[in-house]
């Protein structure tokens, strides 16, 4: 017999031996927590939670102001090369800083992304209660731009913000499941040396979130 059959038989035999225990137990209904309040409350909570785990949120009116914020981050970080995912908003923003910086396309080889100083990506959703970004690399055709560079800049529209993890999971259940989903709450961290918190071990050490009110593309200033 195969291991599969042996295991499943052993499970059945063990559970049968305890008799009617099964009937006594039902699968509990889940409480689906929601956050009360207006969108402004959600945004407030989101910012508070992201900051609590050492991330930063920049509230921005539109794509132009997001581009200016990106410029600021690039200058402050002395960023030389930028990996940009295929997310349309991320592309729109990066196109405004194009020409002045090396932009790596994630479809280029892995080594180029690994060399980049900054990764710019979109997100599928964000969760206010835990300050979490939900990344679905499939949307962006790649997971490395948000992972290999030491600085991750995520672009998020206000309309993408939900209150709770339960809501985010409901969204996920109603969509077709992407190959992978990563929930990100803050930059990479470890405390394996004497419980001393160190930010930025394997993943990005810096997480900046560009939270944009209005992501409508205006006429591109040429």
């Amino acid at each position, binding site marked *: 017999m195969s*291991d599969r059959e042996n*295991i499943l038989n052993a499970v059945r035999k063990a559970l049968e031996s*305890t008799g009617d225990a099964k009937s006594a137990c039902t699968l509990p209904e889940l409480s689906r927590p929601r956050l009360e309040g207006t969108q402004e409350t959600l945004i407030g909570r989101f910012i508070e939670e992201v900051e609590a785990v050492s991330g930063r949120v920049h509230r921005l009116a539109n794509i132009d102001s997001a581009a200016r914020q990106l410029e600021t981050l690039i200058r402050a970080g002395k960023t030389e090369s930028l990996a940009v995912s295929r997310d349309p908003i991320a592309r729109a923003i990066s196109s405004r800083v194009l020409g002045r910086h090396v932009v790596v396309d994630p*479809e280029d080889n892995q080594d180029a992304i690994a060399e980049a100083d900054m990764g710019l990506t979109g997100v599928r959703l964000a969760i206010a209660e835990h300050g979490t970004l939900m990344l679905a690399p499939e949307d962006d*055709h790649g997971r490395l731009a948000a*992972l290999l560079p030491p600085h991750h800049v995520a672009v998020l529209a206000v309309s993408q913000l939900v209150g709770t993890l339960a809501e985010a999971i409901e969204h996920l259940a109603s969509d077709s499941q992407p190959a992978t989903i990563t929930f990100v709450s803050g930059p990479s961290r470890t405390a*394996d040396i004497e*419980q001393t918190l160190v930010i930025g071990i394997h993943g990005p050490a810096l997480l900046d979130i560009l939270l944009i009110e209005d992501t409508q593309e205006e006429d591109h200033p040429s």
Partner: protein
Amino acid sequence: MSTIHDIRSSHFKSDAREAIANVELRGALARAQEQSNSKRDRAIQRIADDWESMRDQASAIKTWTLENLGEQLELFERNAVKNGIQVHWAEDAENACRLVNEICADAEARSVIKSKSMVTEEIGLNHTLEAAGLEVVESDLGEWIVQIAGETPSHIVAPAIHHTRESIHRLFEETLGRKIPTDAESMTMVAREVLRQAFLRADVGITGVNYLVAETGSFLVLENEGNQRLTTSLPRVHIAVSGIEKIVPRLADLDLFLRMIGRSGTGQVVTTYQNLFCGPRRSPDEDGPRDMHMVLVDNGRTKLLASEKRRQTLQCIRCGACLNICPVYRQIGGHAYGSVYPGPIGSIFTPQVAGLHKASQLPFASSLCGACKDVCPVKIDIPGILLDLREEIAEHGEGQRDQETELKMKRESPAFRRWSSLMQSPRKYRMSGALVRTMALIASHTSLFDRFIPPLSAWRSTRSVPRPEGGSFRARWRRRTEANR
């Protein structure tokens, strides 16, 4: 046959003695416990009103799932296969290791990168892979420290908790053969640099699993460092290894467990990264693994299902809260338990999985204080199961005990038979009470007779013998009643 890799729990007594003599270790453990517990308390404080009902729900979901384990596993398998995940089953450690080895061989792998996984420690996977000539690198910082030190993890969440900054620094300098700064941040950055190269050359990435989701055929793995994201993004092949008990029925169940496990384990609201895997890369222009394998491991777990009480052991979500609160673990650390699963949960898991004869001391290595039961997010009755195992070992365990336990039972069993007969007769109780008081009085003055009474010398090895007050309560009560008459 089910087993736990490198188990040496039958040396518990001497290993614990060594640990207690290690002042540096005990200092590190006490500091770590203080910090973990205060972080945990703070994190739970914010949702204190809901915490107890969350525990009830989490426990009920796990109970239901275990009672329907066969169906849930088959459902997971069906859905996972639809998602393009190749599902394998392994009855024991040996078969699990063989399976992983074969997958690596098929992939013509030379180098394997791993992210922290207890079940792969349990089955001794690294050992097998290395024997087959593969390079195996642990990428979680704590696991890497333990790996280069040639040790096993001493805590299920914080593997290198027994190390101090100084000992890690010595280790890094010896291993890397160069001078490095002594602060935690610089040492961490050195590890990042070294491990990044290992990620880039790895052909296969191996992870554990926190939750298998039956209804979607996907699985979730938690981490903080990003090493697991790298492990599952860069190599061509991703192999996940999971105990069969790690299953939950619904995707929505994750919400509850994710809100609990970070708070309970590390005092975080949620862990930094939570990775949900639903299959290999879908289109050629994506990155991520081309092949995804799931190895479902029994290794003795099904044995635990036959008893409703002991089955609870399998509810464990490996948060480590019971280790962080345990006053015994605080004194001796993880290695003394001689199993990759130390502390309270290990003391019930190890003997049931590896067999009583391999770990019969562990159920007795507890003062039954019950702190573990109070903190357990899924409400496992650890003291109750310890008692259950003690009964099996004491009353039905002949031939299944290690040497130390056998010796103990040789003394204890007849003693408790005598005790039982004394305690059933007020007259015999009175007489033996007087004798014990007299002996205690003598013993509080002199240790001359200790060698004839082993428990007395054991007591005195760390404590004075408190002097009895003189006379019994019942005698005083009788005098009082007579005087009042």
